[in-house]
């Protein structure tokens, strides 16, 4: 089993110790079948079978060459350190070596981490708005201070207003207006959640590519390509293996360059004060003393940070920072781009490469239905 990533020594060792023999076995079995068909053709004086056998043996050799080339390309990709390319665009490259496959994997990890932080902040804001819009107060108006407590306790009616009206106890929910904000924030919350789920989906696809994908597709494709009526399927399997093992991680690794930029100049995952509340705990912000809060500081209690933080070089001391609703709504767009748009573009490029790789293997294929799945 492949462990520790596709470029780990265990994985590369697995390629040479298991996959190559597997391909050899598949090739041998196929060659035996072709040889049997040739023998039968000679015995029965069937020139069609003999011709088919001669054609298929060449196709078998072509398939084996394609598989070997693919595995060698994967090995080269594992040896290539993309930091030298990244250094052309940014000064902040990782200290450890970075292969194309690592860069693609890190794209999803970093994008998922960023999106998860944004989602937690949005959830915190929604929870805070819910607390605020359900926090009511009773106040006593127009009462002399000395007897206000008496009338508040007993709710007594007294006539004192200059307009001739009635001075009474008043109930209000002073921060209920934030419930209206939550309607706009809910739309963003759902979009960010969708982006995160999409990222997880594409991460799974990538991890599957790094795992048993090649193990299944290459030997099977090589065998099927030389079988009657199954050449298209075999070609498709090899073309898919070539495209998804090369193109998909390559395109993702290109977009990862922006993640390596210094935080203030990042475009896809910009820094923002929206992440101030990503790790805050709502339960610790509201306590019994807020019940006696007469000067409206519940909002300040909820939207304050417990610890000092530094985001993109800007220091935020622990304390009140207000809600960051607008920032969260703005960054929803970035979450969608990194979670849905860019991985879809990578998948589309891979699907485009499948068609051309298939043509290279001598087949034409219509992938429009598969692309709709994207």
């Amino acid at each position, binding site marked *: 089993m492949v462990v520790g990533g596709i470029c780990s020594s265990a994985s590369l060792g697995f390629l040479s110790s298991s996959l190559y023999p597997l391909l050899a076995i598949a090739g041998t079995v196929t060659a035996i079948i072709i040889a049997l068909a040739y023998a039968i053709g000679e015995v029965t004086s069937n020139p069609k079978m003999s011709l088919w056998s001669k054609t298929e043996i060449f196709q078998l050799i072509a398939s084996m060459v394609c598989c070997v080339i693919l595995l060698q390309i994967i090995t080269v990709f594992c040896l290539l350190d993309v930091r030298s390319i990244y250094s*052309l665009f940014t000064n902040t490259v990782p200290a450890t070596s970075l292969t194309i496959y690592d860069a693609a994997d890190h794209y999803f990890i970093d994008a998922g981490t960023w999106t998860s932080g944004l989602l937690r902040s949005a959830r915190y804001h929604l929870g805070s708005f819910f607390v605020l819009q359900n926090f009511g107060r009773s106040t006593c108006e127009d009462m002399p201070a000395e007897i206000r407590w008496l009338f508040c306790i007993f709710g007594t009616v007294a006539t004192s207003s200059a307009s001739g*009206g009635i001075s009474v*106890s008043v109930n209000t929910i002073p*921060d*209920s207006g934030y419930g209206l904000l939550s309607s706009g924030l809910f739309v963003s919350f759902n979009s960010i959640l969708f982006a995160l789920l999409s990222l997880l989906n594409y991460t799974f696809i990538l991890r599957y590519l790094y795992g048993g994908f090649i193990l299944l597709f290459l030997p099977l494709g090589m065998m099927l390509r030389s079988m009657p009526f199954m050449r298209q399927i075999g070609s498709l399997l090899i073309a898919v293996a070539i495209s998804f093992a090369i193109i998909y991680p390559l395109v993702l690794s290109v977009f990862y360059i922006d993640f390596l930029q210094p935080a203030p100049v990042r475009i896809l995952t910009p820094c923002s004060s929206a992440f101030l509340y990503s790790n805050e705990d709502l339960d610790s912000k509201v306590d019994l003393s807020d019940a006696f809060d007469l000067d409206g500081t519940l909002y300040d209690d909820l939207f304050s940070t417990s610890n000092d933080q530094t985001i993109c070089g800007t220091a935020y001391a622990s304390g009140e920072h207000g809600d960051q609703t607008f920032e969260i709504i703005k960054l929803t767009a970035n979450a969608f781009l990194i979670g849905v748009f860019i991985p879809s573009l990578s998948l589309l490029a891979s699907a485009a490469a499948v068609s051309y790789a298939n043509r290279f293997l001598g087949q034409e294929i219509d992938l429009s239905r598969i692309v709709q799945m*994207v």
Partner: protein
Amino acid sequence: MIAKLRPKFSMLLGILFLVCCSFAAPLDWLPFAAGALTLSAIIVAVLYMLGIGLNLNDLKFLASEELYQLIATAIIIGVLFTADTTINSVFASFGITPTLQNASIATVNGYISNQASSFNTLKTFAHTLGLESSKNMYCSFSAMGFSVAPCGGFASITPAVTFGIQMIAISVTESNSLLTLLKFGSTYGLSLILPLGILMRTFKFTRGAGGLIIGFGVGIYLFLPLAVIFMDGITSPLAPTTAVSLPEFSCDIHSFSDGVYTIADINDHSLFGTEAFSGSVSLSSFSGSNSFDFGYKNAAIAGGLLMALKGVLPSLIYFFLIQSTLTLIIALSAFFMSMRSISRLAGAEVEISSLMRIS
């Protein structure tokens, strides 16, 4: 055949570069594109040498075919270089400086700034609305009493404010997505995406992906900003002249039916006071002076707020439908169409309808 075509291609490329050299042009992406072309040429040359060395005519034919594709790519790069400098020069004459990309980024930043201002106005208004509309009073004495909500009428404004906030939220998200794409295209479109596409296009089995990547890089660098500037030129005359502004107000908890109030009374601050209603509303869009008589002072204030909200509706609709949604749709359509066309030009027939559906 190559020998016959070589002088003509050289002349054509020379003319292209001479034309563009007459304009000031940003050259930061050109070294990367040239480097990618050079690397591709080296790879093709190595393949051709292998074909000669191993006496493989198929390999020689493949390398020759790839060389023609490389020449076509070089022509595309030349045309792109010319187009980039020409467009920047043309727009500079219209006062759009320093580059098309920077101008489009500044335009969308302006959109977001306006939307931020409107959002904050609506947020403040929503907070006050929630506070005032939730007021109710009660009195009781020895288990007898009554409760009344003189400010309950303000709650009728809540759906309109909610809708306005949702519109602004969607507008901001759309505008920021456009801004992110513009920034990404300006920074990486031709300096990173294009060279990658050139390299991928060199090999037969990655030609499709390479063409798609070239189309993406050129489209996001050139056609997306062009569409944004174009749409801004069309839609900016439609922009509302007044900023989104809503009055401050308060609910009089002691107000019951003690008279008949009209809209004119709301505007009469000596009667209602600025604390009750700080702005003014106009009756010009309504017919019938007695259409809006209210038996409660608070109901009159609520009526005035509804009309004030009606006054900001054109701005909100402009932000949501015109400035954000329409601009984004047209810009993305132009981007995807150019992506498909350039991909075809680069030899890749790619179905990008799925990407358009996602966007």
